[in-house]
């Protein structure tokens, strides 16, 4: 194979910490090469070395067979290496073209020549099937489109090798499908791609080969077609990973959460939840399946007191909690793992110990008569840190410094430890690697087995299918159907989520089956 990039035995140290230890990655021409590793395994460090942001302590980099010294990102640019960052680097109130030319603006007689640039952008967009409007403002276009602008940015600068850093983290399933098509198109146009990810399905779908790193060490490179998600997961984590968390049958008893005819509006007074009915019993996990934006966030916020209920009622254990303040909801036995852990789940500038006490700091034994006992908070936090395997230097480390998975574990520890009758978990595994996902699923099932009610909101079909005992499908602010996981499949569920009735779904599935027979 002809290699466009070879990173040979790369070593990168930060003080005493070895972030990359002898890692080799060879990218073939016209290849999609996945770089797989857990959060914090050293993927980003390796790519930052390639992009010239870090200088390696050992090893060498060859581009098209020639040894190179990438001292800064400009060198990387000149070598035709472009990076599509996970967190987009775009100016919100600039147009697509303005963002793309930012940094090397074309001029004509001393003034900006936007139209020439826009023409080139439009041409590139057409060539690669990106469908981007060069004059659209960034703030007006979707996240998926913004990502395409990032891709265009690298292409505009003549990149031959594109690095995608966790490109699907913030995309909808639809956008992910489109992105995969774009990546394939890039390959047919002669580009080569490094894809950084910890999502195994994507790797199986799109990549040719996979290089796995674990805790900073290169584990090896495998050919995707000769591997399986199970093998990749165990290479990445270093042990066997269970994808489908084991669980026994559920034994639901009395009702804990009762939602009746609930109506909730969003900040612009548009009805997002429309006369919704839902109940969750002790000893069961109810999964809410639905496409993002069908009222899930508003439903959860209304139950937990973060958003006003317009009509209808919410009750916990038969006690009405409609429009009660968050603290009253919490104290009536509700635990809440919020959808956005940075916005609602954590005070990032507080130490992780303070965050673990965020729901109980005002109660004995953490405080007494308005005076906080910080030593008691430390002890309490240390207990949770150990029990929930939160990897941190201790309760005094700022929450901001922890990785996403560990932040999430701390939140789960905080909520589960209060022993709530109802645990609400909104997108609890978003952005986490398989090891952490497994851990969290296990905890949810454990709560169920202890006779608690669990309400799970997820956009991931397999998560809803694996973890729930009952699946409530939400569409346009209503629960349009409730199904049992063992009696449905992803295809039917997908159709229900798109707003079809079960009858329609069956018809569509039958039709598709017929089509296959014809072919």
């Amino acid at each position, binding site marked *: 194979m002809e290699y466009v990039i070879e990173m040979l035995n790369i070593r990168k140290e930060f003080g005493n910490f070895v972030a990359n230890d002898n890692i080799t990655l060879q990218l073939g021409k016209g290849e999609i090469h996945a770089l797989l590793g857990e959060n914090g395994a050293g993927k980003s460090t390796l790519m930052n070395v390639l992009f010239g942001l870090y200088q390696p302590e050992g090893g060498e980099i060859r581009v098209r067979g020639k040894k190179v010294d990438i001292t800064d990102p400009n060198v990387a640019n000149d070598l035709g290496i472009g990076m599509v960052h996970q967190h987009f680097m775009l100016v919100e109130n600039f147009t697509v073209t303005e963002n793309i030319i930012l940094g090397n603006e074309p001029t004509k007689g001393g003034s900006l020549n936007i139209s020439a640039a826009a023409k080139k952008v439009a041409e590139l967009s057409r060539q690669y099937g990106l469908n981007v409007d060069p004059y659209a403002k960034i703030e007006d276009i979707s996240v998926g489109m913004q990502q395409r602008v990032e891709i265009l940015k690298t292409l505009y600068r003549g990149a031959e090798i594109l690095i995608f850093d966790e490109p699907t983290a913030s995309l909808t399933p639809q956008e992910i499908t489109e992105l995969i098509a774009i990546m394939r198109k890039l390959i047919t146009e002669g580009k080569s791609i490094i894809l950084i990810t910890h999502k195994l399905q994507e790797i199986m779908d799109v990549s040719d080969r996979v290089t796995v790193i674990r805790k900073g060490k290169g584990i090896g490179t495998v050919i995707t077609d000769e591997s399986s998600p199970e093998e990749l997961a165990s290479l990445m984590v270093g042990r066997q990973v269970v994808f489908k968390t084991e669980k026994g049958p559920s034994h639901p008893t009395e009702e804990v959460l009762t939602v009746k005819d609930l109506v909730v509006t969003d900040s612009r007074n548009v009805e997002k939840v429309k006369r919704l009915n839902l109940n969750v019993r002790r000893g069961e996990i109810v999964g809410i399946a639905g496409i993002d934006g069908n009222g899930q966030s508003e439903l959860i916020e209304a139950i*937990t007191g*973060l958003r006003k209920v317009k009509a209808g009622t919410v009750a916990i254990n038969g006690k009405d909690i409609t429009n009660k*303040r*968050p*603290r009253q909801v*919490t104290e009536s036995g509700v635990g*809440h793992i*919020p959808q956005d852990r940075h*916005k*609602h*789940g*954590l*005070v*990032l*500038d*507080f130490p992780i110990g*303070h965050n673990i006490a*965020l*729901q109980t*700091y*005002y109660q004995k034994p953490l*405080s007494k008569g*308005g*005076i*906080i006992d910080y030593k008691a908070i430390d002890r309490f936090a240390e207990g949770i840190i150990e029990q929930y395997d939160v990897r941190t230097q201790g309760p005094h480390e700022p929450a901001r410094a922890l990785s996403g998975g560990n932040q999430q574990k701390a939140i789960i520890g905080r909520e589960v430890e209060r022993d709530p009758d109802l645990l609400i978990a909104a997108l609890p595994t978003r952005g986490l690697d398989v090891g952490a996902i497994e851990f969290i699923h296990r905890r949810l099932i454990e709560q169920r087995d202890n006779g608690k009610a669990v309400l799970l909101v997820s956009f991931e079909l397999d998560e809803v299918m694996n973890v729930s005992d009952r699946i409530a499908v939400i569409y346009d602010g209503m629960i349009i159907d409730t199904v049992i996981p063992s009696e449905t499949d992803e295809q039917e569920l997908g159709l229900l989520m798109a707003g079809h009735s079960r009858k329609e779904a069956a018809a569509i599935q039958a039709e598709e089956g017929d089509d296959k027979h014809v072919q």
Partner: protein
Amino acid sequence: MSNRMINILVPVISVILGLLVGAIVMAVSGYDPILGYTALWNGIFGDSYAIGETIRQITPYILAGLAVAFAFRTGLFNIGVEGQLIVGWFAAVYVGAAFDLPKVIHLPLSILAGAAAGALWAFLPGLLKAKMKIHEVIVTIMMNYIALHVVNALIKTWSGGGDKTERILDSASLRSDFLASLTDYSRLHYGIIIALMMVVLMWFLLEKTTMGFELKSVGFNENASEYGGMKIGKNIILAMVISGAFAGLAGAMEGLGTFGNMYTRGGFTGIGFDGIAVALLGANTPLGVIFGAVLFGSLKYGALNMPNAAQIPEEIVQIVIALVIFFVACGYAIRLLLSKISKKKEAK
């Protein structure tokens, strides 16, 4: 180099650098820097009178610094310390002059009146922010002007068209013969003790109480605090009120200690605005505020001696003082420099 060493070295080096550049400015302008700095030194520490006056000057700076720092720590920018100080000053003097009470009641009551007036003046911006999301910076700036002119009008009305209030009664005074005699009859008063008590109070509120936990939490992240069951509006208002009370106390110190009355003013006292710099120099910590206030207060008071004793014009003196403060504020750059130097040493 240990962190602790760096923490001590940084301000020392900053002050020295500031003095050096200040010396150059004086030399270039044709004045003797050694004479100038001798005058500055004597102005601050020269005799017991100077020391007494310097401490008196530091007192309101501590309280104004606490006011700003407390707001910063709870996610608010209180630029209205100046206005809160002015209303606090007036309220304290009014209660001190209008009532005749035994000292054990009169003095605390007058002090509290100052704190309450400052708190009230800060309550309004807090309320507007909590209920209508109006930014506190705009409201507090405007409230400064309202305070200045309302208080001027009140003084005129009260004094029947005059430009100063009645003097406070002895029973409301912070002055003390003991402190005065100790410092060669300077205007040093008991305010410094109140200021230091407030330093402890701020530390206690922020670091020991559930109230402080909530105030800081709301300052950092309103959404997560709401999720954690805290009342956002209540905490914003409370933070402004406490900050305003500190500012009002600073005014009360001027009214009940230093001056014993209040004049109509053409412009602001400047103490409230300097409080912002004091808080920032002190990294918004209670102990840091003392350091910032000592620096500001000593330079401000000591500098008065430079034109007299060294014939350096007022304008040059102002530049020199500003340079010292500027270099202290640049502490971060010096910290960076020190860590680079120590790294190089380690490498060797």
